[in-house]
Structures are given as C-alpha cells and as structure tokens.
C-alpha cells in the first residue's frame, strides 16, 4: 500500500511520496556545525541517527513564506534530512498511480519538483527529495 503526504510549506503546497517520508515532528533544536552545506541549519539526533535539518531556502526561489514550526523527516540517498513545513494537510493511502500535470500553472517551482499533484481541489507540488538535494547549489 503506497501513501503520499500533503503539506503546507514556505514554497506553497507540497506533496512527498510515502516511501521517502518517515515522520513529521516539531522543529527540534539544531546544532550548527562547521562547514555546513548550503541550506543546512544544523543537525540533530533522531532515532539513533543524525538528521540534517534544512532551512526553507532549500526549496529555492519558490520559498517565499515562513519556514514553519514542523519538520518532515525524510530518508534519502544522502541520509536522513529534515525539511521545514508549516502544516500537515493530509497523509493518504494511494490506490495505483495518480496522474499529475507536468506543467506548473505559474510561479516558481520548488527544487526537486516532479509535477503538480491535484488533491482536494488544489495543486500540490510533488517533490523528489533526492533531486531537491542534488539541486542545492554547491559553494
């Protein structure tokens, strides 16, 4: 059974596939460490691993609003990362593949954007977190 999470974020409505999404928590205290990558606010221990907490600038130019007080913990090829979100809209089970529109209606697309996912009358930007991380500019 697959599922998908729908959220409000600084980059607008976001959708993340369930196999990436681990948990949503209140934004924890982050430890800033030297030579942190761009967009990284710090790290924190979580369930035996170290999670890299990202700032809302990880979404790129699409980030216009506040970061929010929640953090979405995701499993990626680069380890566990936390993305800032404002609100959990819904986490739903999916039956089969939902079609999505590949062209955005307008405005900036967040990094890692795969397409728009219509849900409850709104378009949520479906993002691939691994691609988001790859698209963060190197210093």
């Amino acid at each position, binding site marked *: 059974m697959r599922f998908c999470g729908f959220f409000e974020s600084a980059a607008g409505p976001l959708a993340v596939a369930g196999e990436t999404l681990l948990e949503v928590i209140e934004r924890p205290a982050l430890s800033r460490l*030297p*030579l942190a*990558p761009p967009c990284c606010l710090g790290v924190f221990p979580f369930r035996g*691993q170290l999670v890299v907490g990202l700032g809302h600038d990880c979404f790129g130019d699409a980030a216009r609003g506040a970061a929010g007080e929640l953090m979405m913990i995701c499993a990626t090829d680069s380890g566990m990362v936390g993305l800032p979100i404002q609100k959990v809209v819904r986490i739903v089970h999916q039956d089969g593949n939902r079609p999505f529109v590949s062209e955005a209606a307008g405005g900036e697309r967040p990094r890692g954007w795969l397409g728009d996912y219509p849900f409850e009358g709104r378009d949520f930007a479906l993002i691939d977190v691994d691609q988001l991380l790859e698209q963060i500019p190197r210093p």
Partner: protein
Amino acid sequence: MLASGKFDSLCSEDAADLRVLFRIGAVPLSVPADVVAGLYQVGRHELFRSGENLPRGCIGFIDLATPVEVFDVAAVLRIEPVTADAPVVLVIDSPVDGWWGLLADRIDRVVAARRMESWPIPLLWQLHGTVPFDRIEQFDGQLHCCCNTQQLLAMVKGEP
C-alpha cells in the same frame, strides 16, 4: 604546560579511546587524545607574530624543545576566530608533519569515547566539500566534531 599527551597513563583507557574536548569560539570540537603531545596555555602577545615569513595559516610559534608552528584553523572551518586573551595550544603529534600547534580558546575536558554517542559525518556534508572531521560525537548534550588533524592541517596550509 597544562597536560602531557600521555593520557593513557592517567587512567585505564587507551589514549586512542579518549577525546580532548575543546572550543574555538562557541564551536565545540574534539581530537583523539592519542594525537595530542601536550596542551599549553599561552599569552596572545607571546604567540602572534606578524611581519615574519610564516607558513600559510601559521600565526606564530611556541617554544618547546624546538619551535612548534601554531595554526589558527578557524578560517578554514568558517567559524569565529579564537579570541581568548590566554588561548590554548593543542600540540598535535603527526606522523607526517611532526609536532604542530592547534590554537583554541579553551579545553573543556578529556572524556572516554565510550561515554559519547557517535555518528559518521552526514553524507550530505561530504558531498559539498572536504570535511576534516572523522565523526560527530555527543557528550553532555553537546555535539562535537572530532577532527582529522592531518586533513585539517592540510586544509589550513592550502595543500590538496
């Protein structure tokens, strides 16, 4: 001198299993005790030398049996520099470079590594550049980057 590097003679732990916790500014760092030849507190006026032909990153010397070059690593770590009036020099014993000094604001303590929770450096860190740390370790609620002293010195000197 604050302490010699023979930490394993001071307790039952092997020096390789001990960590010297120190700070540069507000940033907590650590090194394995088995690379530390000694800890020295110096006056800033004794240490900082300008107008001399110093190696890159070297800010002065301390006089031991031979002069030991002291390096300020804050710039390569992109953190606030050492500001203590009486900073501490960790004399590092390197099999490649011999003795060299790492400038710090203060030494916090020496702890057994088994008392620290430990993680590898996040892969995301390493994808964005050279990271002169071997581990991230937590003690008393604080995360410390455990320095790879050989890599750190190479970065300070601008070596590949």
